[in-house]
């Protein structure tokens, strides 16, 4: 690891103790990862602001006390509280205070109060080819894959350290040669009707994560079906079941005008079959029977388009179970300004901003069965909330919420 003169001076305190701690963390992590140098970053997305015990709060306040400030634009991922509707979160006494102190400490470090896991749909879209330091696994996958900016999977703490230092270790996906695909995914045996289903995409992502782990795939045969929200859902699922930080979709994502353009010299080809899709879909559900006690959508946080789709599917009907709509304050503000929020809440939609139902206690503690169209929620909800999960499309989720029991369209998956 070779630091520049400037970096060495920062590491030894020229810009204060906070900057020195951050630079040491970045440099030391980089050394462990085999980086030879640091690379300046254009922006950061910070995932350390979700409360998981007092240690995170103590570290953030330690940085504040040492005078640290971010030196590049930095957005914040979800916290443990809904700051706009505090009553949504059941977090109790001391923990609530520490969760709030954590969020305030990250603001004090100079980060923007975006509080979303989809910063790329709240105005933070780095340019293709730029180096950035992002945390939050779905955001990392989206940033690399869909935007073509370059980041590794920076964990909590390293993300804020990079934002303060303005630099990241130069290794992994910051280097063009490491962004080439070593797995070619052939989807030619799947029907267009299947690929056109919204629920196919998180299922594909969950399969991809399990199949490739941390490897980079280029997927062929999806060019006419890929949309931003579908790739968002896919990447979030892939980054949950695997360590996927980058995927390419031939003809769609910026580094893959064709599969050949991004394939490494050596690669393996994997054929995705209808059986694989069915198996991956089945693995997303853990519940049996037709019980549904709540519906949750919006992991990653729902976009305006996704909320409009929810509104259309509800068509003014009243749900029998709560529909937790997890989104950013940025997007919900637009919904509110367009005068659409009242109709949604009258239908039984419970808007949640700044956090989400799987990150913090929001749903009744009694537990039960949660239905979701999110591969990421389906993956994490059982461990984080104690709820069993039923996975379905957004339309399945809405019909189930209205009926108060599981309603799922099985046609087209067989």
């Amino acid at each position, binding site marked *: 690891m070779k630091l520049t003169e400037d970096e060495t001076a920062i590491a030894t305190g020229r810009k204060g103790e906070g900057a020195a*701690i951050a630079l*040491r*963390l970045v440099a*030391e*992590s980089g050394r*462990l*990862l*085999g980086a030879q140098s640091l690379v300046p970053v254009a922006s950061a997305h910070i*995932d*350390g602001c*979700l409360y*998981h*015990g*007092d*240690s*995170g709060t*103590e*570290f953030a306040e*330690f940085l504040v006390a040492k005078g640290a400030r971010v030196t590049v634009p930095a957005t914040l991922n979800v916290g443990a509280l809904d700051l706009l509707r505090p009553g949504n979160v059941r977090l109790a006494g001391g923990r609530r205070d520490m969760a709030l102190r954590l969020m305030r400490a990250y603001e004090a470090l100079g980060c923007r109060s975006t509080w979303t896991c989809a910063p790329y749909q709240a105005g933070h879209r780095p340019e293709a080819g730029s180096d950035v330091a992002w*945390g*939050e*696994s779905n955001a*990392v996958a989206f940033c690399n894959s869909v935007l073509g900016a370059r980041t*590794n*999977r*920076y*964990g*909590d*703490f*390293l*993300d804020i350290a990079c934002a303060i230092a303005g630099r990241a*270790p130069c290794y992994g996906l910051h280097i063009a040669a490491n962004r080439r695909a070593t797995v070619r995914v052939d989807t030619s045996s799947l029907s267009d009707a299947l690929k056109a289903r919204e629920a196919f995409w998180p299922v594909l992502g969950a399969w991809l*994560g399990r199949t490739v*782990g*941390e490897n980079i795939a280029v997927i062929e045969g999806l060019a006419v079906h890929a949309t931003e929200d579908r790739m968002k859902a896919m990447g979030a699922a892939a*980054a*949950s*079941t*695997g*360590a996927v930080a980058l995927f390419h979709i031939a003809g769609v994502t910026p580094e893959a005008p064709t599969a050949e353009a991004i394939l490494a010299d050596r690669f393996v080809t994997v054929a995705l079959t209808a059986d694989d899709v069915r198996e991956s879909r089945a*693995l997303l559900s*853990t519940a049996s029977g037709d019980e549904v006690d709540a519906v949750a959508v919006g992991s990653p946080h729902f976009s305006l388009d996704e909320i409009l789709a929810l509104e259309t599917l509800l068509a003014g009907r009243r749900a029998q179970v709560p529909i937790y709509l997890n989104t950013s304050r940025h997007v919900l503000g637009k919904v509110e300004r367009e005068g659409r929020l009242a109709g949604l809440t009258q239908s039984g939609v419970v808007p949640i901003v700044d956090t989400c139902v*799987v990150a913090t206690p929001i749903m009744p503690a009694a537990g039960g069965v949660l239905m979701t169209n999110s591969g990421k929620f389906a*993956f*994490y909800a*059982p*461990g*984080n909330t104690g709820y069993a999960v039923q996975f379905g499309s957004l339309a399945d989720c809405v019909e189930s919420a209205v009926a108060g029991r599981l309603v799922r369209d099985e046609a087209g998956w067989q």
Partner: protein
Amino acid sequence: MTTLFPGDAEGEVLVLAAPLSFWGGVSWETGAITNVRHPQVGEVVTGRILVVPEPVGSSSSSAVLLELIRSGRAPAAIVLGRPDAILVVACLVAREMGWPAPPVLLAPDFRGTGSGRARIVGGVLDYR
């Protein structure tokens, strides 16, 4: 075998039989594996020589490990099958905060699958 974070340790080996994200997979309050889809759900990572052949999942795993370190519920050591910054960063932060953190080794050739005790002394893993 490479030392990613220095230290000596001894404990019962726990080899993860399937990939596990600490966030959403390990309780930061108890150190127990909580991912119901994981074959070792209910096992506790605290005090174990935790072998992680394939680090995966959420980037918040650093925070879960840091909290386990602060509360004294961390693994005795972590042995990674491939380099991954997410867990090691928690140890680096703990050092800045003055909290004792477990050693982390990189051992891509580790082939054990069972239990038994292991020791790590001077960056060398002794496991029979």
